[in-house]
């Protein structure tokens, strides 16, 4: 196992710069998720760690070794691809044995390693099958088995769950996390799904447009997003972000609603952020809001409302019987509201 250090790494494809100086420290045994919308450079960064893309400038270390000019196979890493990249003409056994066979390992050791991996992943009965004859989840497991067999220093996952259906995705998510807890191998996992990032990561690296926006634990990013991008990207349903002006301890939205601030902050334009679940029903002293849409989910109820002309999404633990057009009274939890700089989008520290 090894740490991975990424130092001011940039990447250029011709005249297009896709990574603008990225710094990430990944500790030994850590599960790090690179998350961001498509095109943010997260997959490129992963492929640079793997050695499938050149590093334009900067430095990547795996353990103590700088790997900028080290061939992929020498890096002691294993990668799981989005489309699994299983060799279709080989059985599950041969797929998993391939790297050891190329390395010239003795037959009995290959067998022992493949059986170990198959045991971990519950693939024992499928060893003689071809990838075509497997379901999506089974193929996914074979791809992981191929990685496990090699006993690598680092596991790399490139959006491994995006080809699976929703139910299987949740199941495999748990399996991958469980696998990491058992094997304790440093893992770098790329996804565009913030729920995957939140549920799996020890540390999230949120990226957009080739920049790292924030690095931190999942709840850190959730509770203290450094800027508007992270605030809007992490969390589902997304944080309400409203443009407007600060005036004392109130915030006046462009739609005209007055929302409470944690403390008096002078005046000036800003963006107000409040997560849907931090807006509560408050029949006595709440702000009047017109119900627009009610989406009951059983455990909670998601209600879209308009305060004046300002749209807000609220999630209530209580069951709400309001119908569209009716009025309810709501109150944001002022202690949990965020204020962001209107121009740069950075969070203005309140506490």
């Amino acid at each position, binding site marked *: 196992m090894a740490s991975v250090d990424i130092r001011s790494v940039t990447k250029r494809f011709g005249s297009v710069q896709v990574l603008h100086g990225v710094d990430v420290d990944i500790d030994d045994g850590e599960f790090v998720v690179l998350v961001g919308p498509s095109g943010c450079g997260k997959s490129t960064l992963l492929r640079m760690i793997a050695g499938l893309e050149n590093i334009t400038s900067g430095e990547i270390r795996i353990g103590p070794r700088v790997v900028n000019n080290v061939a992929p196979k020498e890096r002691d890493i294993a990668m799981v691809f989005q489309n699994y*990249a299983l*060799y279709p003409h080989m059985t599950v056994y041969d797929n998993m044995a391939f*790297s050891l066979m190329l390395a010239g390992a003795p037959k009995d050791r290959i067998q022992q390693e493949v059986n170990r991996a198959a045991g971990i992943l519950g693939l024992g009965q499928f060893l003689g099958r071809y990838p075509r004859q497997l*379901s999506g989840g089974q193929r996914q497991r074979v791809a992981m088995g*191929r990685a496990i067999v090699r006993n690598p220093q680092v596991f790399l996952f490139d959006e491994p769950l995006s080809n699976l259906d929703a139910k299987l995705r949740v199941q495999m998510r748990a399996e991958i996390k469980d696998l990491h807890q058992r094997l304790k191998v440093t893992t770098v996992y790329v996804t565009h799904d913030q729920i995957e990032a939140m549920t799996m990561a020890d540390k999230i690296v949120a990226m957009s447009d080739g920049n790292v926006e924030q690095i931190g634990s999942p709840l850190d990013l959730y509770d203290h997003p450094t800027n508007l991008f992270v605030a809007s990207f992490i969390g589902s349903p997304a944080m309400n972000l409203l443009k407007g002006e600060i005036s004392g301890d109130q915030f006046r939205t462009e739609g005209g609603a007055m929302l409470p601030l944690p403390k008096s902050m002078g005046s000036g334009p800003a963006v107000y952020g409040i997560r849907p679940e931090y807006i509560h029903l408050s029949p006595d002293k709440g702000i009047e809001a017109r119900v627009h849409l009610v989406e009951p989910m059983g455990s909670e109820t998601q209600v879209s409302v308009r305060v004046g002309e300002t749209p807000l999404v609220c999630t209530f633990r209580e069951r709400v019987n309001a119908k569209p057009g009716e009025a309810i009274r709501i109150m944001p939890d002022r202690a949990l509201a965020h204020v962001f700089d209107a121009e740069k989008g950075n969070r203005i520290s309140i506490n």
Partner: protein
Amino acid sequence: MALTTATAIDQVAVRTRRPNALARLFDNKLFLIFVCLTPAVGLLAVFLSYPLGLGIWLAFTDTTIGRRGVWIGLENFEYLLSDPLWWNAVFYSVLYTGVATIGKFALGFWLALLLNQHLPFKSMLRAIVLLPWIVPTVLSAIAFWWIYDPQFSIISYLLVDVLGWRETNIDFLGNPWSARFSLIAANIWRGIPFVAISLLAGLQTISPSLYEAAMLDGATPWQRFRHITLPMMMPILAIVMTFSIIFTFSDFQLVYAITRGGPVNSTHLLATLAFQRGIASGELAEGAAIAVSMIPFLVFATLFSYFGLGRRKWQQGSDNE
């Protein structure tokens, strides 16, 4: 009241049913199959089955030009078996097909692998590669005729006058063995584009991530070719090879335009021999018999490449996607 409504509905039903008779006929699957297939079957029968049938029938008669033949059974084939020229043509057809196929596939596959790389002017290079195939065969045959000319050959010119490696011109088409291999070389030149472009299409269906996965698994370029490219290409290789063998074995134009089977009948393929016997000498039945004698070879070659290289176990079963 209820009764009248029911009758009204009946009448509506009857009224809507009657014009449907023709429409219903066209909805009938059997009828549709029959209607749609008739033109194709007709064309095939007239332009494919009839000439083929006539050719096979002629092979069992003693027809010559100007004389309607009678059925003589296998006599033509018995004669061919004792004819050294026929054996000669069989030998050269097999040699021609074998060597030319190996040459075309070795060079064509190599070219396809090159063209599959990221090269500058990639599409232009691909277009250029197709050129030998686009040029009419007779035209390229004439070009090769000049290249192989005993006096004006450019190869002899290069070797004798420019490089000074030889004292005399090479007589490419003047003696049997050099003529045989000269024709094979010309056939390879002509056949490479078909093989290269078909195999290139196959190469492009192989997912790049397989190569990346193999690279991470530690495969060298040769191992990637051996363990990924080659097995993945087997199905398409089988198809392309089947076609190539058929085209090469039944080749006529190139040989007939360059050597006409000479010198001393050493470069006759079965097709050129059949033409010479059947049309040039007027022995229609014997020519037909020679042509028919190609069929077993072609069937065998096709079966071999189809079953030898064809559908593999890993391609079978359903896609679970």
